[in-house]
C-alpha cells in the first residue's frame, strides 16, 4: 500500500518534471542552436542544484524529510526533469559525427557542473534552512 501511494506521488510530480524538461530544453536548443546539447546541460545542472536544496531541507528535518513531499518533488519532479538518456544519445551523436572534442566536452561539462551544482544547492539549502 505504501508503495502504491508513492507511485501516485511520483507520477504526479513526473508530469511536471517531464513537460518542464521538454519545454526548457527545446527553448534553449532554439535560442542557442543544436551544435552542442546545451538544453540537456541546462536542465541537468539546474535539476541537480534544486535537488541539493531539497536534500538540505531533508537533512535539517524540513518539509522534505517527510516521505510524500520527497517522493513528489525529488523523485517525481526533479528525477524526471533531469535525464541521462538524452545526455548519452547526444554524446553518441557527437562522437558519430566525428565531433570528439564536443563529445568529450559534453561529458566533462555535464559531470563536473552537475556535481558542483548539487553540492552548491546543498550548501545553499543548509545556509537557508540551518
Amino acid at each position, binding site marked *: 500500500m505504501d*508503495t502504491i501511494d*508513492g*507511485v501516485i506521488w*511520483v*507520477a504526479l*510530480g*513526473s*508530469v511536471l*518534471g*517531464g*513537460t518542464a*524538461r*521538454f*519545454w526548457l*530544453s*527545446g527553448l534553449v*536548443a*532554439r535560442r542557442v542552436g*543544436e*551544435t552542442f*546539447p546545451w538544453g540537456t546541460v541546462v536542465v*541537468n545542472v539546474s*535539476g*541537480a542544484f*534544486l*535537488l*541539493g536544496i531539497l*536534500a538540505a531541507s531533508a537533512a535539517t528535518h524540513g518539509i522534505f524529510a517527510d516521505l510524500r513531499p520527497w*517522493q513528489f518533488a525529488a*523523485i*517525481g519532479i*526533479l*528525477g*524526471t*526533469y*533531469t*535525464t*541521462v*538518456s*538524452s*545526455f*548519452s*544519445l*547526444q*554524446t*553518441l*551523436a*557527437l562522437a558519430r*559525427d566525428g565531433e570528439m572534442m564536443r563529445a568529450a566536452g559534453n*561529458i566533462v561539462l*555535464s*559531470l563536473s557542473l*552537475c*556535481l558542483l*551544482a*548539487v*553540492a552548491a544547492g*546543498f550548501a545553499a539549502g543548509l545556509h537557508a534552512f540551518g
Partner: protein
Amino acid sequence: MQDNFSPNAPADKQVENNPLRPPRRSIWWQAFWDKTGSYISVALGSMVGAVARFLVSVLSVSEFGDRFPWGTLFVNVTGSLVIGFYAALTGPDGRVFVSPRQRLFVMVGFCGGYTTFSAFSLETLRLVQSGNIQTALAYIFVSIMTWLISVWAGHALGARVNRL
C-alpha cells in the same frame, strides 16, 4: 545533429500550403493543438518512465540495501540502451516508421523520465559526505562508462536490425 526533439514540428505547413485541401481549423488553433499533443505525449511517457524508475529503486533497496545506488545505475544504463536502440530503429535510416509523437513518447517521455541525472549527482554527493570517496569515484567512473557503452550498444543493435 539531433532528431525531432523540437516541440513545434511544422506538421501543419503542408496542409496550409495545399490549395486542394483548405484547412478546416484556423492556423493558430492547429498550432496550439499540435503543441498540446506533443506535451501530452511527453507527459504520459514521463509518467510511465518515472513510475518504472521508482519501482526499480524500491526493489533495489529491498534486495541490495542502500549502501550503493544500484537502482539508479540500473535505470540509467537500461534507459540509455533503450533510447539508443529506438533512435536507430525509428530514425531516418530506420526500418520502423513511427510518428513524431510516438518518438516523443518513448524518447523524451519514457526514456527521459526513466533515467535521472539529479539522483546520480545527489547519490555521489552523499557518498562523498559519508567519507566513501573511493566508492563515489567508482560510481562516477562506472556510471559514465556503462551509460555510454549502453547507448552505443543499443544503437549498434538497432542499426543491425535495420540491415536485416
